[in-house]
């Protein structure tokens, strides 16, 4: 029996007329969220964490990823593993700490104890269990797939998914640009920003690489940049390129007026900032040649790895992932990455540079969240006003970063997967 499909499409692309629209129902309908859980969050590679968050043997952290509670652990054999944080006995969350270092995980309910490989190693009155129960039956359950690229670990809840490497496709080029900032490697700097707000998760995917909203939404931030001595217009004002990176990932690459701790100074950083960044640029040139060194030092990019990992390499690097709590509410986790061998002065400068724009206390992110919250509220009118417009630049000869092509790339992939398309 044929299933009656909804008469209203999710996404309509009319390239002849240059019109691209998204049905506002996709932001409010709980049934669509359920489909997303099955077709997107259960099928795509989802970011868990970075290896430098658990650098030593025995380091672990707990984290909710794609609706599952996970334990992310650096095991004795130096392999990083991830388990579902639930006791195989009665289901209690085994590990209750946010992070730590240990030799074992112990469920306090009945005292079952597991080693860092997830194997059951002890339980009270063990002799009361049948010897016929197969080995492994009472171990912690590992995630179906855990793979990494340059220290970034991703989980996939579909054991049949293609490998991470091919999933990331050309997004790897931009991960490389980020990780190549330092020969010593990059690390997550202490702390995580966790916040939530009342807007559908896809609105933050759009917003994270929406070049069009920059000036109107963030006028007050740019006032600050000018006050701090940044040059509006800046270097490479003409550089402005959206790119499809495969599998729904996309990026915009552009020049901007703000300072970049690697390795574009602004006057407010003084002589020390000038000297330190010059030294970093010289090292980059030695390692990569002039052209790539310049790109690493001066080019900004905002990238969304489908469906929900943002890597924005701007006035600092932010890694950001976000999950729906409901159609109208999302939870955000954000980190920053920095060179392991950074001087304390540059580290200080980097963290403060991050905060001038980013995060819940920054001069920009709260206004983004407010805009997205207002969108979500506006969708209460969807019976009368039912469509979002993502048409800017469609049908033009070339695309610029303040067009909306990068968002169309996201939506085409979202629509494809929601229509039952696989990899």
């Amino acid at each position, binding site marked *: 029996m044929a299933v009656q499909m909804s008469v209203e499409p999710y996404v309509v692309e009319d390239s002849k007329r240059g019109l691209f629209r998204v049905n506002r129902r996709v932001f409010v309908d709980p049934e669509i969220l359920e489909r997303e859980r099955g077709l997107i969050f259960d099928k795509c590679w989802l970011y868990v964490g970075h290896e430098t968050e658990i650098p030593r043997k025995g380091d672990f952290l707990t984290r909710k990823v794609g609706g599952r509670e996970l334990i992310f652990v650096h095991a004795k054999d130096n392999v990083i593993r991830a388990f579902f944080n639930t006791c195989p006995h009665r289901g209690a969350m085994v590990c209750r700490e*946010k992070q730590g270092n240990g030799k074992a995980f112990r469920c306090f309910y009945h005292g079952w104890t597991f080693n860092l490989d997830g194997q059951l190693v002890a339980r009270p009155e063990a002799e009361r269990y049948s010897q016929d129960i197969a080995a492994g039956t009472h171990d912690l359950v590992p995630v179906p797939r855990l793979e990494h690229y340059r220290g970034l670990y991703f989980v996939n809840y579909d054991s049949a998914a293609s490998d991470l490497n091919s999933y990331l496709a050309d997004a790897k080029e931009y991960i490389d640009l980020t990780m190549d900032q330092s020969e010593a490697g990059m690390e997550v*700097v*202490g*702390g*995580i*920003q*966790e*916040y*939530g*707000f*009342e807007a559908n998760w896809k609105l933050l995917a759009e917003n994270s690489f929406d070049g069009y909203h920059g000036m109107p*939404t963030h*006028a*007050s*931030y740019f*006032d*600050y940049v000018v*006050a*701090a001595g940044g040059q509006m217009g800046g270097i490479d004002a003409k550089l402005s390129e959206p790119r499809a990176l495969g599998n729904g990932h996309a990026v915009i690459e552009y020049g901007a007026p703000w300072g970049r701790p690697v390795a574009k100074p602004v006057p407010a950083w003084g002589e020390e900032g000038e000297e330190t960044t010059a030294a970093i640029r010289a090292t980059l040139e030695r390692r990569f040649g002039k052209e790539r060194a310049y790109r690493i030092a001066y080019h900004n990019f905002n990238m969304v790895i489908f469906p929900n990992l943002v890597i924005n390499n701007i006035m600092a690097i932010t890694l950001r992932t976000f999950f729906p709590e409901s159609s109208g509410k999302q*939870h955000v986790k954000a*980190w*920053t990455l920095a060179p392991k061998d950074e001087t*304390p002065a540059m*580290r*200080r400068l980097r*963290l*403060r540079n*991050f*905060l*001038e724009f980013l*995060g*819940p*206390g920054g*001069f920009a*992110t*709260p*206004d983004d*969240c*407010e*805009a997205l*919250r207002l969108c979500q*509220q506006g969708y209460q009118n969807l019976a009368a006003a039912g469509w979002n417009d993502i048409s800017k630049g469609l049908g033009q000869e070339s695309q610029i970063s303040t067009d909306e092509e990068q968002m169309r790339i996201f939506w085409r992939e979202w629509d494809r997967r929601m229509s039952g398309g696989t990899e």
Partner: protein
Amino acid sequence: MNAQQATGPLSVIRGDVEEFLFEEAALLDAWRLDDWLGLFIEGAEYYVPPAGSDEDVDPDTTLFYVADDYFRLTERVKRLKKKTAHVEFPKSRCRHIVSNVRLLGGSDDQFDATSNFVTFRSKGGRTETYLGHHLYRLCLVGRDIRISRKVSFLDTETINDQGKVSIII
């Protein structure tokens, strides 16, 4: 970010500090941000560490929500007064509740105090609650108490319910 030992005479008592902190709260409730900024000495700092942080958290190695030097604090106030600080336009209604004020010691040049707080921010049909404690480094300028550093520690594990730190808490 811990309290320091006393090195000279201290001529304020706990009640003076309490009165000062009540005045500060009243200025913030009334959105009198220029006057509020006037309570800080030049070179002062304002911090909000990530929710759930201990007092030994360091802004040079940890990603805070707010780590303002005096310049950025001044810019924060300027921004919050603009219509283009969209998150606070129209302005939210704020109520700063301050209690459990304790004077931790020091001298007139530099003394520390702490208070518990509950700050309510109401806007758009909902009220967000921030709770925790403030740690102040204060000094006497003439006979007036002034702030050289304010750190606001949030008790919640995340700010999933509040979403932002767009007001001065």
